[in-house]
């Protein structure tokens, strides 16, 4: 009964999503408050129904109800409970259900928190959200129904793709979806504003927390996915410019731009049309990401759903929503009242620069990701026998993305320190001198110590240091008491001033410092050491200042797999640092081998080992890596997300006021 109730709840949620996308919007157009008033309860009940449906599917997985086709195909009674649960979203149908669940929950959250929002905006936002939900619920019911039944039921399931049986999988997709789908709220806000024909600081005030939430989750989701690929795919890379990765990077870049432009709008009532466009584009890129992953147009690890019907359906959703919202934009945007104008050298000017660079780099990734697909489609259409296949990889992105990213990163501390409306570039430069000098000193020192090594690494570390120190400078400057830090009793005063700074200022500094950490982690990869060796038990090899010894090779049994592990000991001279157990696993249900990397964290770096081959005489073919500071790549993104979270806690309404007094004492009313 549980399964069927879940199925019916999903159908009913579809009916309600249609109601939600029609009646409140009708209310907005007809200026009928009662019709608009249906939006909140309908959104809440719709979310509850989708939740019932999701819980029902999870229950089927947990109890191994093999009368559900989806469970048979993706679960196995011998699987540990955690993977039975994560199995729910490890497959196409279940992950689409999770997608819609998050969409509906976001809509419900807006409904709950929307009491202070203008009613017309709230109705428009929820209506737009309802339309998106309707499209995806229809997609699920028509092409990817997770509740299809099987009778008689088999006694055992087919197991889960072994690559996906991993703690990373339990977290990565939900985080990523929270990010992707979170931007649907910004999209719905944009559509709501366009329908209403009005957009202002109030709009920005209400959309900002949602954009931040989505951005935080997307940041964590991408970082989690990168770490998962790093240790699960067994070749030690952390970013592959794989189309699926790019699909999540594009909304992140656009979302980061959106985050900054909403600040301008909230404080200065400017950049309205651009912000609306960015909201639409960010969610459109999320949809394109979903399309790329779900349609199977890409052949990569992630594209486990290959089904043309689904691809066509998602493409139709894409065209309707992106095309529809852009058409609405073209029609209504000219009616929006433009806000104030501002000087190029000002905080808002810097944020425009930020937006330009982010948008350009996003466009670069877009072209690099979709051009090969478009080329193959067009040439395949002209000459079906011989479509042109090209692959665009790291060299392209290094040449195009990095030249855009580096100047942007260099400019970050400047933007952060400029005042609203009228900035004083010279004053800012003076304040940043200390940070700049220190960053250059760091670069030179690192270069000297590692003389003869790659030059890019010290430069990258210098850039990272500049970002961290520059972000701190802003906090230090703003908490500087009148007589300087070192006058008597002033240190305490400075601390209390620092504590009294708006949380968003701390959030900004933290997030920008997080980028600095990630940049340092990336730069340090240039010093990485890679060795491909075949070792006999007892043999020792050198690896970037450490030694690795193979103790032996042994078979082992897991709950639903067998594996052969190589036992490695990592030594620093004669001191044992720890052991590694990389292995090759065979999963019984799928009869498919996977390799498990062995990781040992030393400081912020890691020794990484994966097994290429185990020979019958006990020798092991191994890939060994030493990756200095590699953890900073992911720690940095966690710090970024923390900064976002801190900024989210800042609930104040803001107004950007020009500053008239001397620069060092400048405290914009942030």
């Amino acid at each position, binding site marked *: 009964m549980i399964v069927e109730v879940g199925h019916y709840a999903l*159908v009913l949620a579809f009916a309600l999503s249609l109601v939600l996308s029609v009646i409140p919007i009708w209310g907005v157009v007809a200026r009928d408050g009662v019709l*608009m008033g249906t939006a909140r309860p309908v959104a809440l009940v719709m979310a509850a129904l989708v939740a019932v449906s999701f819980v029902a599917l999870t229950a089927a997985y947990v109890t191994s109800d093999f009368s559900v086709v989806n469970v048979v195909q993706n679960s196995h009674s011998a699987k540990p409970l955690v993977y039975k649960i994560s199995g729910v979203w490890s497959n196409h149908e279940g992950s689409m259900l999770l997608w819609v669940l998050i969409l509906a929950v976001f809509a419900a959250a807006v409904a709950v928190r929307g009491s202070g929002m203008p009613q017309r905006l709230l109705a428009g936002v929820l209506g737009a959200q309802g339309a998106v939900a309707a499209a995806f619920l229809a997609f699920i019911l028509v092409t990817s129904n997770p509740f299809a039944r099987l009778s008689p039921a088999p006694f055992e399931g087919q197991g889960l793709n072994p690559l996906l049986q991993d703690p990373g999988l339990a977290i990565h997709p939900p985080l990523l979806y929270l990010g992707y789908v979170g931007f649907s709220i910004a999209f719905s806000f944009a559509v709501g504003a366009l329908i209403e024909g009005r957009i202002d600081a109030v709009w920005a005030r209400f959309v900002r927390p949602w954009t931040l939430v989505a951005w935080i989750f997307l940041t964590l989701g991408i970082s989690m996915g990168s770490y998962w690929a790093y240790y699960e795919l067994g070749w030690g890379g952390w970013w592959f410019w794989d189309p699926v990765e790019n699909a999540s990077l594009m909304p992140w870049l656009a979302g980061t731009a959106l985050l900054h432009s909403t600040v301008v709008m909230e404080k200065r009532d400017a950049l309205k049309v651009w912000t609306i466009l960015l909201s639409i584009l960010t969610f459109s890129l999320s949809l394109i990401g979903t399309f790329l992953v779900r349609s199977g147009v890409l052949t990569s690890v992630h594209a486990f759903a290959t089904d043309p019907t689904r691809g066509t359906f998602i493409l139709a959703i894409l065209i309707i929503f992106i095309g529809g919202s852009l058409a609405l934009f073209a029609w209504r945007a000219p009616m929006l009242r433009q806000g104030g104008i501002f000087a190029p050298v000002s905080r808002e000017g810097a944020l425009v620069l930020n937006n330009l660079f982010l948008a350009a780099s996003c466009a670069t990734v877009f072209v690099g990701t979709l051009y090969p697909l478009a080329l193959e489609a067009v040439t395949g259409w002209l000459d079906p026998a011989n479509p042109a296949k090209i692959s665009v990889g790291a060299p392209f992105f290094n040449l195009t993305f990095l030249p855009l990213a580096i100047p942007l990163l260099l400019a970050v501390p400047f933007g952060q320190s400029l005042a609203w409306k009228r900035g004083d570039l010279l004053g800012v430069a003076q304040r940043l001198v200390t940070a700049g000098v220190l960053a250059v000193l760091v670069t030179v020192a690192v270069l000297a110590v590692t003389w003869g090594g790659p030059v890019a690494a010290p430069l990258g570390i210098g850039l990272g240091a500049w970002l961290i120190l520059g972000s701190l400078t802003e906090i230090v400057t703003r908490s500087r008491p009148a007589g300087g830090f070192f006058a008597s009793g002033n240190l305490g005063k400075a601390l209390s001033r620092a504590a009294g700074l708006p949380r968003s200022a701390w959030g900004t500094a933290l997030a920008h410092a997080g980028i600095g950490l990630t940049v340092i982690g990336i730069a340090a990869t240039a010093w990485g050491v890679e060795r491909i060796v075949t070792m006999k038990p007892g043999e020792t090899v050198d690896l970037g200042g450490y030694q690795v010894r193979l103790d032996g090779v042994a078979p082992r049994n897991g709950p639903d797999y067998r594996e052969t592990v190589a036992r490695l000991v990592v030594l620093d001279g004669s001191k044992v640092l720890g052991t590694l157990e990389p292995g090759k696993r065979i999963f019984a249900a799928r009869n498919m081998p996977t390799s498990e990397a062995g990781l040992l964290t030393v400081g912020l770096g890691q020794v990484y080992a994966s097994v290429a081959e185990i020979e019958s005489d006990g020798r092991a073919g191994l890939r060994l890596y030493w990756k200095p500071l590699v953890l900073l790549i992911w720690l940095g993104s966690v710090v970024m997300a923390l900064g976002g979270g801190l900024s989210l806690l800042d609930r104040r309404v803001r107004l950007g006021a020009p500053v008239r007094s001397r620069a060092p004492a400048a405290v914009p009313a942030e």
Partner: protein
Amino acid sequence: MVVTIVLALLTGAAALAVLLPLARRPAAHAAGDADTGFYAAQLAEIDRDAARGLLAADEAEVARVEAARRLLAAERRAAAVSADASATWRRRVAALVALVGIPLLSVPLYYTLGQPSLPDQPLASRSQESKGNLDFDQAMARIESHLSANPEDGRGWEVVAPLYMSMGRYDDGVRAWASANRLLGETPARLDNWGEALVAAADGLVTAEARAVLDRALKADPTSVKSRFYRALGAEQDGDSKAAIEAYSKIIEDVPPGSPVVKSLAERITKLGGTPPAAAQVAALPPKDQMDAIKGMVEGLAARLAQDGSDVEGWLRLVRSYAVLNEPDKAKDALQRGTTALADNPDGRARLEALGRDLKIGGS
């Protein structure tokens, strides 16, 4: 029934989500309220910041002017928008959508997609159903995972195949028997079972593939009852009643009287419009008379063989019959007489001796 109630409750909740807000009085909610509130909050905050010393007095003044300017603009806008009107006809249409539209969409859609009568089948409760035989499921799962790791293990396939058949997993049964035949070599018994599995997997239809397998079984052992039965069934399905009746009758004559298959074969023959052979008519008698009749028939056979001892099939039936009637001495005696009578038929004698060994009454 419970399902229907729960589905009805869910539908009701969905309809109420639309109906309840419609029943509310139109809110006296001016469009600009939230806006003015927003700017008023902003003004209050500037005062707070100024009081905490985060804003210099002149900066606070500038900010206050800016916020006040926006507040005034918002209030002007709010005044321009007339209070929200709500027409009764619009509310009626919306209510109709909730009451009729929602169920009209969701119920038929669900009945096309879902299977409301199919209960949940969690694995734990299913093992209890099968006589609390949890060990059986576990053993089964173990064998299956063993076979997926070692697909070339013919013995394993042979062990698991009858289990599949008894569980009703006929497709798996076909795969298992095919593998067993491929890996261990074809024997009449394995071919019989493979053919049977093919028929079962095709919902009782004797397919061309099944026929090919059964024919191979019959080539190896023409007396195989199973294969002959399914071939006859195939003939029946082809509409060739005459051949089917003939084949069924032949089987009845060859199996020991009293064998459980006799009755069902006789029924098939009758259904096809034929007359079951005498042996089968016994099956229709009450149990006590049945025994007498059988004994009478066996004695008749014995008498016939005493006159003409060259009928190999006759001797085989006689020995088998005595064994079935639990008369080992008579069976042994018949075996000896048969062996003697078939002195000039080494082939027939060998079969008879083999039967004796199978029934453990030989030893001559």
